[in-house]
Structures are given as C-alpha cells and as structure tokens.
C-alpha cells in the first residue's frame, strides 16, 4: 500500500495545462502533519473508486501528512493517508449548490404544471359595473351644507398633505386638475370615494358612477362635469378574483400620471399605493384618509342614510374628509364657487390645512 503525503501533490490545478510545471521533485520536503492535525493512516477506505479519500473538503483542502519526503516517494510505494474528517470540497459544494438550485426550479415547474393540470385554471372574472343607485348618489351629493359645517374636519381623519410652490397641475383646458389613482378592490379607495363623490358634487355634476358590488362606488366610467375643475379618475386595478397584487390592470396610467404618483408618494415617504389624490399638485391624499372599518357591515343605502347626522361616525369620516378635499379644490379654483368655498365647514378645513 502506498502512502500519499500532503505535500506530495502535483501542481494540482485539475485540468490546468500548467499543472505539470511545478514538479513534485522540485518541492522541498514536507513538514510533518499540518499544525494541529493528527495523521490518520488507513489502509482501507483511504481511496474511493475515484481515488478520493472518504469525506472530502475540510482541513483547508489538505490531507494530513505522515511525514516523509515530499514528492520523493515512488508512486508505487505511496500510501494513501486518510484526511481528518472533512465535510465537502469546494468543488463538491459548488456543484451541489448548482444542483440544488436546478432542483428547486424543477420542483417549482413541476408543482406549477401539476397544479394547473389537476385543477382547472381560475378564470379571471372582472365584475361588470352596474349603475350606482340613484337614491344613494342623491343622498351623498345632497348632504346638507349645515351637516358639512357641523362636521368641519370630523374625527379620526388623516388630513391631506399640502405642498406649496409646486408646478400647477392643470388639465388641457387650463382648469385645475384633480387626479385620483385607486383600485376597485381597495377598501381605502372605497372609503375615499364616498368623500370624493360628495366633495366633487359641490363643483359639478357626477355621471357614470357605478356600483362595484361593495359598499362604495367605482369611478371606472365616472366623470364630473364642472366648470371649476377637471377630475381625472384612474381605477388602476380591478376587483377581479385573482387576489391581492395580481389583479388585472384596468385603466393604465399615463407616464405623467405615473410620474406624479411616484414623485409625490415618495415625497411624503410613501410607496406608490392607493388611494392617491393630487389636487393641482398642492393638496395630496397619499393613503387612507380614514379607517374604512367605519363603513364595515353597512351597505350603500345605509351609509348614505347616515350622512345627514353630523354626529354619526360615518358622517364624521365621510364629510370631514370631503371638507378637506373641498378646501383643497377651493385653493386651486380661486375659492370658486364662493358659496362652497366660504362655507364654514370648508373654511374650517382650509384653516386646518393652512390653505387660507
């Protein structure tokens, strides 16, 4: 049985054609076993069919030595010295790692294919809009000004953000623009829409409001005819049945809209989320104005019916938020129409926002 000593290696660069340059014969005698290692010589199991010792790797890749002249022992007399317990060689680890990644990818694909084969793929269903109830729309748009004045800034409302000295956001017609970006599925957007419907009804006439089968409206086909402001609603995602984060894009954003969304969300330390409202690049709603839980368990008619009671939490939330939006719009329309912009509820909100 021959014995291999640790220093008794060839150039050892594997397939490296330079391997033979460093002749073992030129090497100085090896020291005894590397520091701290006890050579363990075996006569059995020292080599595998590939000539490798059991284990592999570890020990900084060097087998221990039993001493002797490095590179001087004739190969036929070499004896394989078993290394200390080793884990895996770097080469083994490398190829195992690659294999693990390949296996994971294959598992993903197999699970995906098997899953889609065993169960019929889910058909994306985008609910069709139905016109919003006229009575509900009338109740929201007809909230008495006295109620709005009594509510003022309401309770538990996240006031919009005000940013001065920004480039004006105006429509092609030169009117101030109010951009809304939301998703039909988004409960915060649903809550915000109640206030937006009320606020914008003070400046124009709604049409095309739809019922997305939840206790809110959809702006999917909605528009506001107003001589004061242009309302640009974007329901960016549907309320289809594919689950959060995977819903179909419904109304794509223009580059300019996307830039506004990104810029001002980031400005206020938020990621691009829903709802986003930009009134003339001056007043911004970045995130929910109030907790949509206030509306929980109520249908549209019930919510609408509460809007005449200024003490009701629903009214506080919906109308209080609307007053903020109205104040923001007034700031961009030059306080027109005066009847709306000088109303006590609007003034209260404008004062709170330091818009006046």
């Amino acid at each position, binding site marked *: 049985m021959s014995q*291999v000593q640790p*220093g*008794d*290696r*060839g*150039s*050892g*660069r*594997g397939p*490296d054609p*330079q*391997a033979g*340059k*460093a002749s073992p014969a*030129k*090497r*100085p005698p090896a*020291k005894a076993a590397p*520091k701290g290692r006890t050579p363990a010589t075996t006569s059995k199991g020292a*080599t595998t069919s*590939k*000539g*490798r*010792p059991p284990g*592999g790797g570890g020990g*900084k*890749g*060097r*087998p221990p030595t039993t001493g002797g002249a490095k590179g001087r022992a004739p*190969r036929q007399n*070499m004896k*394989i010295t078993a290394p200390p317990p080793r884990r895996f*060689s*770097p*080469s083994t680890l*490398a*190829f195992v*790692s*690659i294999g693990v*990644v390949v296996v994971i*990818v294959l598992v*993903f*694909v197999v*699970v*995906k294919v098997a899953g889609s084969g065993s169960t019929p793929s*889910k058909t994306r269903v985008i609910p069709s809009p139905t016109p919003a109830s006229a009575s509900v729309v009338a109740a929201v748009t007809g909230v008495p000004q006295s109620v709005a004045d009594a509510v003022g800034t309401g309770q538990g409302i996240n006031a919009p953000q005000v940013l001065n000295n920004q480039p004006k956001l105006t429509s092609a017609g030169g009117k101030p623009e109010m951009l809304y970006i939301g998703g039909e599925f988004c409960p915060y957007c649903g809550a915000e829409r109640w206030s937006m419907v009320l606020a914008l009804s003070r400046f124009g006439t709604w049409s095309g409001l739809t019922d997305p089968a939840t206790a809110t409206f959809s702006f999917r086909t909605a528009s506001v005819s107003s001589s004061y402001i242009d309302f640009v609603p974007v329901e960016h995602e549907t309320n289809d049945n*594919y*689950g959060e*984060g*995977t819903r*179909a*894009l419904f109304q*794509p*954003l*223009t580059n300019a*809209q*996307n*830039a506004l969304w*990104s810029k001002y969300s980031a400005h206020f330390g938020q*990621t691009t989320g829903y709802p986003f409202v930009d009134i003339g690049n001056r007043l911004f709603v970045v995130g929910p104005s109030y907790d949509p839980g206030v509306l929980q368990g109520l249908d549209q008619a019930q919510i609408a019916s509460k809007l005449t009671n200024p003490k009701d939490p629903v009214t506080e939330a919906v109308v209080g938020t609307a007053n903020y939006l109205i104040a923001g719009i007034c700031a961009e329309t030059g306080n027109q129409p005066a009847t709306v912009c000088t109303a006590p509820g609007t003034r209260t909100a404008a004062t709170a926002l330091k818009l006046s």
Partner: protein
Amino acid sequence: MTDVRSEAGQDVEEDYVEENDASVPDVPRWLPITAFALSLIGFGISMYLTIDHFQGIVPICSSKGFVNCALVTTSKYSHILGIPVALLGLLFFTAMVGINWPALWRARSPWVARGRLALAVSGVWFVLYLLAAELFSIKAICLWCTGVHITTFLLFVLIMSSFPLMSGRAARSGEWDEELEEA
C-alpha cells in the same frame, strides 16, 4: 502557474497561503468573457425594465395569458421594501459588470472571488423568490424578467463552478484530489 510553497522552499502556513496566494488561479479563458457578456446582457435588460418602470410603461411583451409582463411588473412583487425590483436588478447587474470585468478575474485577492460568489448566490436566491412569486402568486411570467433570471442563473453556474479554482484553498484541494486520483 507557480506554487508559493515551492518558491519559498518551505511549507507555508495554510492561512497565510490562502490570503496571500501569489499564484494566479487559472480559469478557462472563455469563462471571464462569458461572465462579463452575461453581466452586460443582464444589465441591459434590467436597464430597460427600470426605465419602463419609472416611465410607467409596460414592457414590450404579451399582456394576455400566462405570459403577461404588465401583470408581473405592476404586481405587488414588483417592489421590495418600496424599492422597485427592476432597480434592484439594475444595481445587481451593475455590480456584476464591475466584478466580472475580465481583468478582475486575474485579481489575486480572494475577496474578489468571494464577493463575486456572494453576489451570484444572493442573485440566484432572489431569482428563486421572484420565480415562485410569478408562478404561484401572480400566476403569470414576464419574458424580460425570465431573461434576467436565466442570465442570473448562468452567472451563478459560472461563478459557482469556477470558485474552487479562484480560491487558494479550493485550488489546493483540487490538487489533492487530482493526486489521489493518480495514486
């Protein structure tokens, strides 16, 4: 290639050799070039996806069925901690282009190889996460993203398989294995 121990005339403390191996690890000549080319490809695709992201444009790609770039690039998985994934990809490949610069494959510091390996490993794990998100959550794939994933995986394979040659310890282990095979 020379062996630092034979030049020194004595065996050298292993740790010293590992950190100060004067030998230049040999890798096939095509490997640095391929890795650099893959890095450039990944950089290009990531740049395109990042520009599209910030301009609000959906990448040129199918938007129906299982291949749906719009669905993928606008899903909630398109951001991580508020950072667009496309931008992360661009940063990743920028680093990859730098560290795979052909001249750096001849660097003697083991930390270059280690940094390259760390980047490759982190990249491929991120790819697995995104692949799982595409297949099981978004239920759609984006061909541009898949291009980035394949590029990252190929870089991982190249870097992982060359790492033993690039590290002194691994190289010595290889010598040992080879010698044992000869024996």
